[in-house]
Structure formats: C-alpha cells, structure tokens
C-alpha cells in the first residue's frame, strides 16, 4: 500500500473539491478500496473520508419514493421497513451479497462503485487494461469462468460484481451527485455504469471528484419481488448469474441480470417478453452475447434462473 494523506471532509462540496485533485479518492466504508490498495491495484495519494457528511438517512421523497443517503450501510438499507415492504428486491439483493460483517461497513455509494473481481485485475503481474490502460487483457484466453458474456469488449471481459445495483436497476433508481463546482445531477442507474468499449479503466460516468450523495428510488411499483443469485457455494460468493425481477400479477414485469456484464444487464425489449417465458426473455436479452468456453454456461443458466423466478411468481 502506497503512503497517503487522509482527511475527513466536513461538507460535500469540499469533499468533491478535495477528491478532484490528482491522486485523491473518496473513502466511505473502504471494504473494496482498502482491499485493492493493499495489493496496489489502487494507489491513491490522498483519501477523503466522507463518513461525517451525514448522508446516512433514508427519507421519503415527495414523489412517494425513497431517497437513500450515499452512506447508508448495506445492512441498514436492507433492514429498512419501507424497503422490505415496498422494494424487497433490493433487500433480497443486498442480503445475498458479501457477509454480515461487510454489509455492516459497506455503503450504498461504495457498493455501486465496487470494482470488478476479475482475477487478472487483482494480480498486478498480469496484463489488465482496466488496471493499466493499454497493457492488454490477460483474462481473454485465460481463466474466465466468472467473467462477462455480454457488453464486454476486446479490451476487457470483466463484470460488475455487485448485487445491490442489479436490484436498483429494475427499480429505475437515480444516482444523485455533486461535483467540485457544486453542480448536482441525477444519473439514471441505466447510464451509471459504462460498457467497457475501448476504455475499461472507466467503470462509471462519474467525473473526477464527483461525489455520490444519494440514490433515489421512484415510488413503489408493486408486484412480487425476487432476487435469485446462483453461485457455487451457498453464501459469501459472487454471483455466477443473478436475476433481479419484479413480476406483476398479469405476468409482465421487469428483469435485470447480474454477473454477466459490465453493468446490471437489463434489456427493456426483452423483459416485455416475460409473459412468453424465460427462454424468450433471455434470447432477446443476450442477443449478441460473446461468451468464452469457460463461461458459456451463463447463458443457459440465466434462462433457467429466470425460469425459477417465473415459477415462484406463479406459486
């Protein structure tokens, strides 16, 4: 871990200004950042700890939705009575991820920003365009069982590893930010994570120093909520494939997939086919998929996991 200076920000814009400096990064829970700093995948020279900014509340919005402070812990968000009642896909996604200890520390914003778990990204002896632009991608042609099948590029085949964001994607959440100039914006979660393209080093559309202040959920959409996470061991593991779904009594609904792409993978035109069954949805959602030999199973697995959700919705 490289040496760094540390400050506790007093206000959001000040934090954004501090973090806009070259080499600076925000620190919230730290559960992903410190992990990566220890192996020098991340090497910030300055950390701006935002824990005192007070973004730790969940409030109802005028539109009947919820505004989740960026620093609300995963545990607190999952346990919130309103979330459990009206957005249970979100509770289910969060409690399917990581461990109790990590969820107690990890923040809402940090969870959105967690970096890929590609093993080549984690090994600094290996080429990785995401870690070191232009160095190549050792994962292509390597061990890729966990990696992406769609939305990837010839520069990077990593996935976004999170669960929470997959649920937020079906809930059409917005990510609220403030930048160093005090400018605020609300980014639809659909646009928040980038596809890798030629620049896999850029995970999201955030600008340097742009600070997430909250995630907003529109008013509840009813329906039955599911988060089906498929993994080798029963807990404390990243998804091979996950399915977040909200299914209405008439069989229509929303579906997003995790563990398959650089971002939560939701194709609205595909979910319109829900009444026709899982195979129809995934055929459309994964059109143009480019799996490797190691991870081609994720395609039938996505179909079968969605079929499981549909069966449960009818039970």
């Amino acid at each position, binding site marked *: 871990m490289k040496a760094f200076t540390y400050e506790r920000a007093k206000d959001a814009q000040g934090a954004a200004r501090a973090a806009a400096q070259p080499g600076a990064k925000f620190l919230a829970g*730290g559960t992903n950042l410190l992990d990566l700093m220890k192996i020098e995948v991340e090497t910030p020279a300055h950390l701006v700890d935002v824990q005192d900014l007070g973004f730790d509340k969940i409030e109802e919005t005028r539109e009947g939705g919820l505004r989740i402070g*960026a620093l609300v812990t995963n545990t607190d968000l999952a346990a919130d009575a309103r979330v459990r009642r009206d957005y249970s896909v979100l509770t289910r996604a969060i409690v399917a991820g990581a461990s109790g200890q*990590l969820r107690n520390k990890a923040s809402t914003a940090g969870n959105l920003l967690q970096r890929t778990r590609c093993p080549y990204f984690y090994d600094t*002896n290996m*080429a990785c365009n995401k870690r070191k632009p232009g160095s*190549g991608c*050792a994962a292509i042609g390597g061990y890729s069982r966990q990696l992406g099948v769609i939305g990837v590029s010839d520069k990077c085949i990593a996935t976004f590893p999170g669960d929470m964001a997959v649920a937020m994607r079906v809930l059409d959440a917005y990510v609220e930010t403030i930048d160093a100039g005090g400018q605020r914006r609300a980014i639809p979660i659909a646009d928040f994570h980038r596809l890798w393209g030629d620049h896999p080093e850029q995970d999201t559309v955030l600008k340097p120093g742009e600070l997430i202040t909250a995630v907003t959920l529109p008013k509840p959409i009813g329906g039955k909520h599911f988060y089906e996470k498929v993994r080798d061991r029963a807990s404390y593991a990243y998804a091979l494939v996950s399915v977040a779904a909200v299914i209405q009594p008439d069989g229509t609904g929303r579906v997003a997939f995790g563990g398959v792409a650089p971002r939560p993978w939701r194709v609205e035109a595909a979910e319109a086919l829900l009444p026709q069954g899982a195979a129809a949805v995934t055929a459309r959602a994964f059109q143009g998929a480019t799996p490797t030999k190691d991870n081609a199973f994720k395609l039938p697995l996505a179909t079968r996991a969605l079929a499981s959700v549909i069966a449960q919705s009818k039970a």
Partner: protein
Amino acid sequence: MKETMPKTDPGALSMSRRGVLAGGAATAAMTSAPAAIAQEAARATAPAPSQPAPTMPVSLEVNGKRQNLTLDTRTTLLDALREHLHLTGTKKGCDHGQCGACTVMVNGVRINSCLSLAVQHQGDKVTTIEGLGTPDKLHPMQAAFVKHDGYQCGYCTPGQICSAVAVLDEIKRGVPSHVQADVSARPQVTNMELRERMSGNICRCGAYSNIAEAMEEVAGVRA
C-alpha cells in the same frame, strides 16, 4: 464510496514495478521460448528520495479502555489492535475481507477489522475477543464453543465467536437475511439462519456443525 480517476491515477505507472506484465493471448507464446522481458518506462525513473509516510493521532476505546495512538495512515484497525495494542486475539487470516478471522465489534456492530483504517475509527468503541471473556471467566458464547467443540486449530475462533455474539443480536434486532422466505417478517433463530449469517467466517477445519450447536445453546433454542 470512492471515485475512480483512471486517467490521472498516479498508480498506473507503478504497476510495472516487477518489470513484467503477463500479456494477453498474444504474449502467451512467450511461455515456451526464453525471452528477455521488455522493461517498462518506470524503470527510468530514479529512486525517489524517501519521505516518511504520514501519521495521525488516533483515539479508540478498546474493550472499555481508552487508547491513544499515533499511527501511519495505512494502519488498519486490525494491525492497530494486533501490532500496536498487542491484542492478538483478533486474527489476520486473509487481510482482504475474505475470511472473517478479524471480526470485531465497533460501536456494537461486527465488521472486518482488516478492511478498515484505524484513522476511520476516531473515538469508536471497539470490542475484541479479549473484551468478551478471559480463560478464567468465559463469555457464555466462549463457554459454549468449548462445550460443543466449536473450533479445532483455533485460528478463526475469535472471529467466529465475535460474529456469533453479533449474529444473535442481529436476529434480535430483526436484521433480515438471505434465507428468510419473507424478508419483511422478523427473523427467527433457526439452524439455517445461523449458518447463513455466520457464512462470513470461514473455518477451514470445518467446525461449522458444532458452532451452530454452540450458538443454538446460547440462543436457548434447539434448532
């Protein structure tokens, strides 16, 4: 929450420090033929003059006792406990949040102390395994682990016990879990609930079945 600044990341150059990057498929061929590995740009950079790393004062309340330390900003809560306060009951198993051996309670909530900087915990109340009980006066969970043989090599054990104590509290407080059929309902102490909630604590010796029994005894249930 953190921000990624790929273009300006000063760490980008440091990746080459070991002088070799395994390439993609194209360079794979090199494995079968001796080849001198090209040296990277960073090599040209002369060794920078050494500068001491920043340190900061940190005040913690550990097991009820105020501790004032001056620490390298890089020092994790785990290393502050083990190397500075010599509270070695909290274990370093992976140092990456992948095993749970470092579990402690901070302000009443269990966390992985390896993935937390000490400077993040200014003024926090930390409870470690040493704060639960002593060999002569075991905490009921510690006693139950002994009775049910809920450990073997003992290395993950302090983390398991801290988690076990916290898990029973989390269930009491109604924190939901992955194995609840209805996440809006209050969780119950069942064998599956305990196992799911303890899953962040790996025991390679495989004492899981016994740990669940120990926890059931402390919780006063036969699950």
